C-alpha cells in the first residue's frame, strides 16, 4: 500500500477516506457535535428542574414555539424528550461512537504496527452509517410532535403508543431507524477492530505485549458484537408492534377510552432484551476510557502500569460478567425474585475486578515521577469519579437495597459519575494525549488545565449532592417536584446543582476553543512529545497512507518499560523510557 501513491481528491481524502486516521477524526468531530447538542439539552432541562416553570430566554431561544407552554417554559413532554435524547446522544453517539470509534480507529493500526485497518472500506462504511444515524437522530428533534420521549431505555408500551406521549409517534420511529443504523455501523466497526487486532499485529507484537489500550478496545469490540444485535432485535420487534400490530411487548392496554387490540405480550421481555445490551453498553463506554487512561497514567507517571496481567484479567472478567448482570436493572420489574438473587450475586462480583483496576491505578502513581500534562489530570480525575461512582454501585447492585433507590436521583448520580463523567474524562484525556498524532500539532496546556479544574469541580458539584436528593426519595424524570411538598426542601440543592452544571457547560467551550484553534494554530508537534514507548510515536508527524514510510517496525518488548534501570541503578538506555522497537540489551531481563 505504501508503494503506490494515487492522487487524492478532496472527496477521497476528507469525505470517503479509507485511511483510519482520517476516519477517526471524522468520528471525533461528529461525536463532538453530537456532544454539544447533548450537553446543551441537559442544561435546558436542568434549568427547568431547578426553577420549575420559570421563563428562561435560553429555553425560548433553543426550543421551537410549539414545545413551549408559554414563552421560555418547556412543556412537560418536551422535558421528557430532552431527557431521552440527552441520554441517547451521550451514551451512544458521544461515548460509544465518539469515544470508541475515534480511538479504535486511530490507535489500533498505530499501536499494533499495521498499515491500516483490516478493511478500510468497511471502516469508511461504518463511519458514514454513523453519520447517517446521527443526522436522522438530529432530524427527529424537529418533527411536529417532538422527538422520542419515553426515556433512553424506550420501554414499551410508553414508547409504542403515541396516545401515551406525543413523542412516541414519528419521533420514536426516527429514533428506532437511527438506532438500527447505528447498531449496524457499530457491528461493522467492531468486527473490523477484532479482525485487525487478531491478524495484523506486527512481528514481535504478541498478545501479552499489546498496550492495555489495545486490550480494552479489543474486548470492547467483542462485547459490542455479542450484545448490540440483541438491541437490534428488540428494536425490530418494537417496530413490528408499533407498525404491524404484533403483540411482542404489548398486552391488555386501555388508553384514550378504548381497549387496544394487543394480547399476550410482555414489556418485561423488552426490558430483558434492552438491558442485555444496556448493561454491557456501560462497559462498551467505560472500558475504552479505562484503556486510554492506563496508557496515559503509565506514560505520565514514568512508571510501568502496575499489574499489567491483572489489568488484562480484570478487563476480561468485567467483560464476561457484564453480559450476565443485566437483570440488576429490573429488580422491581416484576421479575421472579429468585432471578433477582442471581443477578445480585453476579453484579456484586463485578466490584472485584473493578477494585483491582482502581488499586492498580493508584499503585501506578506511587513513587512515580508524575508529569501533569492535561491528559494526566483527566486520567486521575477518571480514577476518582470511577471510584466514587463505582462504590454506590454496591448499593444499587444489591437487590434488597435497590428497592428503595431504584429510579431515584441516586441512580442518576451513580451512573453519571461511573460511566458518564468517567468516560468523558477518558475521552478528553485521550484527545489531549493523542491530539499530536491526529493533527500534528499540540493542544494548549494552560487552557487544558483550566478546562480540567472547572470541569472537575463542576462534575462533583452536580453529581455528588445528587446522591442525597435521591436518598430523599426523589424520583428521576419528574418535570417538576413542586407537586410534592415532601421534596420542597430539595429545591435549593437542585438550584446549586444547576449552577454547577452551567459552569461545567461553559468550561467545555474552553475545550472547544482549544481543540479547534490548536488544529490550525497549535505548536507543531514533535514525533514523540510525551516520551512514550508505544508504536504510534514511531510514525512521522505528517500523516501518510500506510503509517510508516519504510518497513513496519518490529517489537521487542512490552510497552511499559518506563524508568527501567540496570543493577547500578542507571537507566538502561540512558532515558527513562524504552520504546517497544528497541531490542533487549545484552543481559537485560524482559519485564
Amino acid at each position, binding site marked *: 500500500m505504501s508503494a503506490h501513491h494515487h492522487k487524492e481528491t478532496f472527496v477521497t481524502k476528507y469525505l470517503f477516506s479509507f485511511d483510519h486516521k482520517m476516519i477517526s477524526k471524522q468520528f471525533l468531530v461528529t461525536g463532538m457535535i453530537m456532544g454539544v447538542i447533548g450537553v446543551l439539552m441537559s442544561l435546558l432541562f436542568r434549568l427547568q428542574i431547578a426553577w420549575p416553570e420559570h421563563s428562561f430566554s435560553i429555553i425560548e431561544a433553543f426550543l421551537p414555539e410549539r414545545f413551549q407552554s408559554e414563552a421560555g417554559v418547556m*412543556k*412537560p*413532554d418536551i422535558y*421528557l424528550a430532552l431527557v431521552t435524547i440527552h441520554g441517547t446522544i451521550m451514551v451512544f453517539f458521544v461515548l460509544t461512537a465518539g469515544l470508541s470509534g475515534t480511538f479504535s480507529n486511530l490507535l489500533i493500526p498505530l499501536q499494533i504496527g499495521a498499515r491500516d485497518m483490516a478493511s478500510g472500506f468497511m471502516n469508511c462504511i461504518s463511519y458514514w452509517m454513523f453519520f447517517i444515524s446521527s443526522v436522522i437522530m438530529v432530524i427527529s428533534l424537529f418533527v411536529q410532535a417532538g422527538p422520542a420521549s419515553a426515556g433512553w431505555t424506550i420501554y414499551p408500551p*410508553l414508547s409504542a403508543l403515541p396516545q401515551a*406521549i406525543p413523542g412516541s409517534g414519528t419521533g420514536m420511529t426516527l429514533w428506532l431507524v437511527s438506532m438500527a443504523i447505528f447498531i449496524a455501523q457499530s457491528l461493522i466497526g467492531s468486527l473490523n477492530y477484532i479482525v485487525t487486532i487478531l491478524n495484523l499485529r506486527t512481528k514481535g507484537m504478541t498478545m501479552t505485549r499489546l498496550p492495555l489500550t489495545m486490550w480494552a478496545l479489543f474486548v470492547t469490540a467483542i462485547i459490542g458484537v455479542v450484545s448490540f444485535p440483541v438491541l437490534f432485535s428488540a428494536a425490530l420487534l418494537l417496530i413490528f408492534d408499533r407498525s404491524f400490530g404484533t403483540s411482542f411487548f404489548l398486552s*391488555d*392496554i*386501555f388508553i384514550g377510552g378504548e381497549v387496544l387490540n394487543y394480547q*399476550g*405480550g*410482555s414489556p*418485561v421481555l423488552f426490558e430483558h432484551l434492552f438491558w442485555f445490551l444496556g448493561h454491557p453498553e456501560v462497559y462498551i463506554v467505560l472500558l475504552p476510557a479505562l484503556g486510554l487512561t492506563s496508557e496515559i497514567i503509565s506514560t505520565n*507517571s514514568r*512508571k*510501568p502500569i502496575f*499489574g*499489567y496481567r491483572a489489568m488484562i484479567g480484570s478487563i476480561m472478567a468485567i467483560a464476561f460478567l457484564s453480559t450476565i448482570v443485566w437483570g440488576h436493572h429490573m429488580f*422491581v420489574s*416484576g421479575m421472579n425474585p429468585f432471578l433477582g438473587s442471581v443477578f*445480585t450475586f453476579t453484579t456484586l*462480583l463485578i*466490584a*472485584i475486578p473493578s477494585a*483491582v483496576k482502581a488499586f*492498580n491505578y493508584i*499503585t501506578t502513581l*506511587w*513513587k512515580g515521577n*508524575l508529569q*501533569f500534562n492535561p491528559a494526566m489530570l483527566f486520567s486521575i480525575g477518571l480514577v*476518582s469519579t470511577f471510584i466514587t461512582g463505582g*462504590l454506590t454501585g454496591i*448499593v444499587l447492585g*444489591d*437487590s*434488597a437495597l435497590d428497592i*428503595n433507590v*431504584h*429510579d431515584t436521583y441516586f441512580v442518576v448520580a451513580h451512573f453519571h459519575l461511573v460511566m458518564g463523567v468517567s468516560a468523558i474524562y477518558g475521552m478528553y484525556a485521550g484527545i489531549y494525549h493523542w491530539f499530536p498524532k491526529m493533527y500534528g500539532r499540540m493542544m*494548549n*496546556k494552560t487552557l487544558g488545565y483550566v478546562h480540567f479544574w472547572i470541569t472537575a*469541580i463542576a462534575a*462533583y*458539584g452536580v453529581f455528588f449532592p445528587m*446522591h442525597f436528593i435521591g436518598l*430523599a426519595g426523589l*424520583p428521576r424524570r*419528574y*418535570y417538576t*417536584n413542586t*407537586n410534592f*411538598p415532601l421534596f*420542597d*426542601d*430539595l429545591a435549593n440543592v437542585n438550584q446549586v446543582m444547576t449552577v454547577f452544571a452551567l459552569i461545567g457547560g461553559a468550561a467545555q*467551550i474552553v475545550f472547544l*476553543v482549544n481543540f479547534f*484553534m490548536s488544529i490550525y494554530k497549535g505548536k507543531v508537534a514533535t514525533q514523540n512529545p510525551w516520551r512514550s514507548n508505544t508504536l504510534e510515536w514511531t510514525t512521522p508527524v505528517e500523516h501518510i497512507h500506510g503509517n510508516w514510510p519504510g518497513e513496519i517496525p518490529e517489537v521487542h518488548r512490552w510497552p511499559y518499560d518506563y524508568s527501567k534501570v540496570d543493577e547500578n541503578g542507571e537507566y538502561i538506555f540512558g532515558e*527513562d523510557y524504552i520504546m517497544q522497537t528497541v531490542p533487549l540489551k545484552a543481559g537485560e531481563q524482559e519485564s
Partner: protein
Amino acid sequence: MLALFYFFVAVAFAIGIWQVNRLLTYRVIFKEIKDGNKIITFQNDNNPIATEKDNDIQGKFFMIFLVGFYLLMGYCLIFLHDIMLPDAASIEGENYDNLYTITFVLIGIVQFLTQALLYFFAYKYRGIKGRKATFFADSHKLELIWTTIPTVVLAVLILYGLSIWNDVTDLEGDEAILVEVYAKQFSWEARYAGRDNELGRGNVRNIEGANTMGIDMTDENAADDIPVRELHLPVGKKVVFKFRSQDVLHSAYMPHFRAQMNCVPGMVTEFGFTPKYTTEEMRQQEDVILKVASVNEARVANGEEPYEFDYLLLCNKICGPSHYNMQMKIIVESEKDYLTWLNQQKTAKELF
C-alpha cells in the same frame, strides 16, 4: 433569532478565552542596555508539555482539590442529612435500614481512603526533574490482598443482602390483607379484597362506566371487593399488594415503607410489608419532625402553606407527560379505625 444571539455570545466568549490565553503566554522581559536604558521584549512561553513548575502547581491543586472534596462530602453528610428519608415505617424496612447503614459505612470508608491515597500520591509524587520513578510492575502479594479483601467483604454483603431480599419477597404463608393497586395515566386506584380476602379477576376489557378498574363481575370473588381512591392500612398487619396497570409501565413507590414494584400492563406483580407506625405516630418521629421542619422552612420562604407529613404512593417509572404528578395518599391507622373506614366503603356489587 434569539438562538443566533446565544450562538454569538458563545463565539465571543470563545474568542475571548483564546485571546486572553495568548496574551498570557507572553512574558514581558526587560533587558538593560548601556546608559541604563531598557528595552522591552516579549517572550513566547508557550510550551505545550508540562514543566517542573506545572507539575508543582498541578500537584498542589490536587491536594487542594482533595481538601475541597472532603469538605463537600462532609457538608453533604452532615447538612443534607435532614432532607433524606426518615427511618423505615415498616417492619421489613428495619432490616433494609440496617443493611443500608452497613453498606454506606463500608463504602464511605473505602471512598475516604482511596480518594485520599489517589490525590495524595498525585501531590507527593509530582514530577521533579532528575528524580527516578521506581520501576515497580508487579506484586502478587499486593494483588492478592486487594482481590481477597473486596471478595470477602462483598461475600458478606451479598449473603446479608440476599437474606433480606428473600424475606421481603416472600409473600406466602401468613394471613395478609390483600390490596390491589391499580395504575393508569396519571392516577392511582385501589381495591380491597373484601370479606373473602380474594380479589376478583381484573382485565382492561371489562372497563365500563363506574367499573374503571376492569373488575370481572362474573367472578364470584369480585362481588365483595371494595374499590377505593385512597389507601388506608392498619398498623402492625402485613399487607400484600397486587399491582396492575391499565396502559403503560408505572412503578408504585412507597419510599417510607422501603417498598417499590413496577405495575406492568398484562401482568400482576406483587409486594408486601407491615406498617410499623400510624400516620399520627410517624408525625411524632424525631427525624420526621426534622424533615418536616426543613420542608416548612423552604415553604415559608416561598409563602406557601405549612406541610404536614403523610405517607405517599408515587409513580416512579416514566409514564407520560404528567408522570411528575401521579400520587396517592396512604393513611396508616389503628386496626379499629381501619375497619371502620373500610366498612363505610361500598363494595363492587353495590357500586356497579
